[in-house]
């Protein structure tokens, strides 16, 4: 008798636990959250704050830019699985897939390795170098 009662309580407990798990997970799945963060740039010399970085939700035109302190607050609430793209001229683009608990991001962009070259066109006609006679 006692064991039967225990079993009943146990089943009841399990059921409510399961219910809780399902409820919580589904509700958090649908939950959207605010995303803030800071963007830095890493060069071979240093890592520093990057302002004016374009941050947008992949596949949309919704986005923002980082401020003078490298900080940003995404203009709309995001959900788990959304991909944020960080793009800045001269640095390698970075994509970050959001997880449930990502409400604050510290993003470090790596400087793109370019050798700076430059030959510009001019309007000069070719002139041979001649020895002075």
């Amino acid at each position: 008798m006692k064991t039967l009662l225990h079993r009943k309580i146990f089943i009841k407990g399990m059921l409510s636990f399961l219910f809780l798990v399902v409820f919580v997970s589904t509700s958090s799945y649908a939950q959207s959250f605010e995303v803030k963060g800071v963007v830095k740039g890493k060069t071979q010399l240093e890592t520093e704050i990057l302002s004016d970085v374009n941050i947008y939700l992949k596949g949309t035109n919704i986005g923002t830019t980082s401020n003078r302190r490298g900080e940003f607050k995404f203009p709309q609430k995001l959900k788990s699985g959304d991909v944020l793209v960080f793009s800045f001229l001269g640095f390698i683009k970075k994509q970050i897939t959001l997880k449930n608990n990502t409400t604050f991001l510290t993003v470090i962009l790596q400087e793109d390795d370019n050798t700076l070259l430059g030959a510009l066109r001019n309007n000069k006609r070719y002139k041979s170098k001649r020895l002075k006679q």
Partner: protein
Amino acid sequence: MKKIYFLFLFIYICNSNAQVSDFNHIDFSKADKIASNYKNEELTNLPLLAHKLTSNLTTDVEKFRALYMWVCTNIKGDYSMFLKNKRKRGKYRNDSIKLSNWNKSIRKKMFKQLRRDKKTVCTGYAYLIKELARLANIKCIIIDGFGRTSSTDVERLSAPNHSWNAVLLNGKWYLCDATWASGMNDLESNTFKFDFKKGYFLAEPKLFAKNHFPLERRWMLTNKNGLTFNAFLEGPVIYSEAFKYISSPNYPKKMLNTVYKKEKATFKYKLLSPIDPSKISLLISNGITDKIVKPTVIIQQGNSLAFEYQFPKRGFYDVHVIAYNDVLMTYTFDVKNK
């Protein structure tokens, strides 16, 4: 009928070199119009800029054209940075640490200036083209190598000095150079002037190779019988205007030529379309005086053009080939008595 079909097939295969004429059926005016509508846009939001320039176009080649056109008509060349960079790279040529440090410091400055003033050197142009193309889902890369202009000192051209792009359209790679298409530095006023040259867009690879020699040979996009580096250095000077008229400068092959007084100097070209031969002239300079002469046209058949000229006096001459008012090529002739 079958024979004609095979003939066409044969001609088609022979012309399969990647160039702008592959897209003759496409009218670029819509893409160009979009680029001019967004003139004066800033570089602060590249994804948005790429979206604005390409979202109303359907084909990749038109999208790429809009991006390319926008860059060519909005980004200025920075001649003073070019000179400074050239000087420093020359100075640190044999010191890899100093060269690498210099590169790091100038790179940061270059991108800052590009973002803020829309002013750059060729790496900046090529980088911007690549980034915008990638944002529009078009595969595009930067090609580093040697560029030859009228002021390039070929005897000292040992380190790469130029960057341009290769772009993948409809499964085929094409070449373009936004830096040289965009404009030029006016040496008298030392300011940059926008002056769009259409010939550097999806250029004919063989002609492009006359003034662009890539570090990796395969990016020449010509067949394996392509130019060697020596032939590149020894070739005549070719100007941007040449891309308007010429598809292949066949002869003389070299910059330095020797003729005897009684001989004739011969010039042979394959043209993009026939030119009125009376509009061809030679500007001949002996270093002190310039004179304009009319060569004798010997072949003028379809797109083939050949002409010759006999020098009346011995001497060392710079010979510039001119069509209408455009200088196309320069050669030198050492004319000797016999």
